[in-house]
């Protein structure tokens, strides 16, 4: 049975590792086709968010279950500066750097559930889930 996995994200190279591990777990859980690409892409976006804003953090991947429905949970956790204005950060096209401003709102669209917990000066935790339909 598939197990929890954790990937330390300290550099841009770890973004690739995180999304590859996420894809591997999703395959094990029975996801196929475009779902795999969407999960891997969403992981890439939240992992990049860690590298860009917090420098380091981790991605935790785990199988989840809700009754008979199975899925994957992706948690991106950092101890960075936190997000001051969540609605602004989630606004499509807004970026606090010179990015495209697609990362976080994009990740939300790719997944079924998306939640941000953040505290200024303490860090940010993004929890995303995708269910097998």
């Amino acid at each position, binding site marked *: 049975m598939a197990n929890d996995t954790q990937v330390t994200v300290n550099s841009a190279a770890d973004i*690739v590792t995180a999304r590859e591990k996420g894809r591997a777990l999703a395959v094990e859980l029975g996801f196929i086709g475009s779902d795999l690409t969407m999960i891997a892409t969403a992981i890439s976006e939240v992992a990049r968010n860690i590298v860009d804003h917090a420098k380091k953090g981790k991605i935790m991947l785990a199988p989840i279950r809700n009754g008979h429905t199975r899925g994957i949970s992706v948690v991106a956790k950092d101890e960075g500066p936190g997000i001051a204005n969540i609605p602004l950060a989630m606004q499509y096209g807004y970026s606090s750097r010179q990015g495209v401003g697609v990362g976080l709102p994009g990740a939300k669209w790719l997944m079924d559930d998306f939640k941000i917990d953040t505290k200024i000066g303490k860090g940010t935790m993004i929890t995303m889930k995708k269910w097998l339909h």
Partner: protein
Amino acid sequence: MQVPVLKQGYFLIASIQSALSDGDLIELRDNLSNKVGRFRSRGVIIDVTVLDVIDSFATRTLRAVAQMLKLRGAETVIVGIQPDVAFAMVQLGLTLEGVGTALDLEEGLAHLDRLTKRTVNNGQ
């Protein structure tokens, strides 16, 4: 992982072999910009067939590469975007506006032939 760049007549072909980190993408950008000058290339094909993820950073970099090469006098065509990748890109609202795309290497070369012939004819 470095991306090999092959010279084929007036064209360059960058054939991506495995998942690329942000650093690899930046390196590819700089490498192509240099080689276009050195080989006086008219067109560049970037083959992304093996990529299973093209996220916002990769899209932004590919767009930047195409714009840079255009300023250096070369056309860029991205070939081999997989159906699932295209789907996720659309979901993310990512576009490659202003960048040529083609189904595969063969179509990409045909596309560049047309584009660069037109340039030559217009110049006559």
